[in-house]
């Protein structure tokens, strides 16, 4: 089966940003749903938890610690798990990721290329940066360069805005931001919940979303690819709902309009 083959050849290590306060309310449900499709999963917090595979990093909790958490998480992974995967996904504990669709995307690239993927935003960095909430993926080479950047002080903790800072570091280290839209130019990574993207005019015309998005995009059915990879701001009940909609509920015998080939 195609999905099984891709699982073996496109190895993805997922790390999920979490904390002691959201372990039970969020991380637990992430763990019960999409992360079982990762080749390896790690949860990153300020406190260790052996039950849920949670790594205790030397950080404090709080929004201002997010980039420290990211830096230390990637360093931890580089030190202990670098050889176990080809691609490294970062997600929040309210991000839902469809690994099969991620592997389809990644299978078109080589992990030795200095590239990274996600929902591309503009502003703050010349080549843009990837939204933290929508989840982003570093190639093996990109991770190597991230670590190298900190070793050589080319990259540093300049602010706590995790996704923007990571984007700047990537740019400094000549890691390319990839255009991750599908064949019909529909986005794969989504920084909001499905309803906000799919319902026309749900998002106000003044919403930050329109000015941040790197590529032209729309709301309504054109927002999203059939083979979407991620959605964000997904609470615990929604995690299971999405799992049901993606992996279980279907229209029997239906011939899809969009196909990957």
């Amino acid at each position, binding site marked *: *089966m*195609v*999905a*099984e*083959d*891709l699982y073996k050849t496109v190895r993805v290590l997922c790390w999920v940003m979490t904390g002691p306060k959201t372990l039970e309310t969020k991380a637990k449900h992430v763990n*019960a*749903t999409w992360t079982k499709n990762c080749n390896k999963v790690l949860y990153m917090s300020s406190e260790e938890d052996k039950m849920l595979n949670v790594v205790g990093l030397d950080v404090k909790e709080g929004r201002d610690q997010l980039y420290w958490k990211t830096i230390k998480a990637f360093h931890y992974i580089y030190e202990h798990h670098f050889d176990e995967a080809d691609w490294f996904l970062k997600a929040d504990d309210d991000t839902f990721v*469809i*690994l*099969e*669709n991620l*592997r*389809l995307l990644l299978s078109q690239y080589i992990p030795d290329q200095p590239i990274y993927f996600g929902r591309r935003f503009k502003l703050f960095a010349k080549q843009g940066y990837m939204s933290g909430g929508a989840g982003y993926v570093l190639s093996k080479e990109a991770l190597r360069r991230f670590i190298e950047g900190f070793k050589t002080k080319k990259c540093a903790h300049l602010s706590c805005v995790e996704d923007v800072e990571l984007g700047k570091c990537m740019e400094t280290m000549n890691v390319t931001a990839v255009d991750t839209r599908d064949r019909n130019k529909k986005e794969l990574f989504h920084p909001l919940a*499905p*309803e906000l993207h*799919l*319902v026309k005019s*749900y998002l106000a015309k003044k919403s930050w979303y329109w000015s941040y998005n790197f590529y032209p995009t729309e709301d*309504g*059915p*054109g927002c*999203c690819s*059939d*083979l*979407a990879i991620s959605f964000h701001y997904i609470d*615990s*009940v929604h995690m*299971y*709902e*999405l*799992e*049901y*909609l*993606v*992996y*279980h*509920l*279907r*229209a*029997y*015998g*239906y*011939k*899809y*309009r*969009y196909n*990957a080939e």
Partner: protein
Amino acid sequence: MCKDDSKMISEGSSFIKGMLLGGIFCAAVTLFGNFNKGHQSTTDHHHHHIQAPSEEELLKLPEPKRLELSQHIRVYCIILVQPRELSYWAAVVDTWSKHCDKAEFYTSEDVKVFRAVSLDTKDQWLMLRNALKHAYANGKGYSWFFVALPSTFAIIENLKYFLLNKDPSQPFYIGHTVKSGELEYAELEGGVVLSFEALRRLVGVFSDDVKCPEQGRALWKLTEEKELAVCLKYTGVFAENAEDSEGKEVFNTKSVSTLIKEALAKKPQEVVNGCCSDVAITFHGQSPNYMQVLMYGVYRLRPYGHTFHDSLIFLPPVDSDND
């Protein structure tokens, strides 16, 4: 000849045209003969739980027959709306009703924005009666009639899959059933399915003022779903529940979110598996916004590389962009 059809069709295309015609007739007879054992010429049957056909049963038929069968089953959707539910009405127009072979909206009173059959009454039972009468009068060529309320979301392909091995010239009245004293009825919220024969009998009993009065029972008022059940019972048609091959309900009177929350409370170790059918037909109480999410989730979003060997094929509707 019927049993050897599959071998003959694989030999030479010159046979195919003639065989197809005869084959379809044979398939229909064979199917209905096999799956309706014990109900051949009775005027009333009491099977209470109908199961969807298994893959093996369907896959026994050659592909041309299965394709033809997919296209031959035609569903007439009857959607009962009120002007105060305009946003739901709009959502149904823009979402799942596009998958009905015919979708007719029946309203208590006209609205300028949407085309509908105006029934000029606010009485629920009278609305239902008149809608069904209208559908029957305009329903030649449709084998199944599906009644829905505006906050119900339906997956018509799954309905057709479920109905495939059922003979519409037999009386069927299917939905999410509930017992109220002696009366078993299908809850309107979960969607109600009537075969052509059941509808024919129902329209017949409408003219009987004792068995099925227009104003409802005189002594105690019944809800329209119960009135429907009583009238049908007089014609020998009984409500039947519906489950998939794993015993999961396919007509749901609750929303996806409610069912997930219930599963989370009852079976926290197996929330999604314990929740709902993969081939569910209806959910109820869905907001207009969530219907757009369901269209995307059901007809578009999926994990790459998972293949299904479905024995039927349903094509996307024309002029639609959210499926």
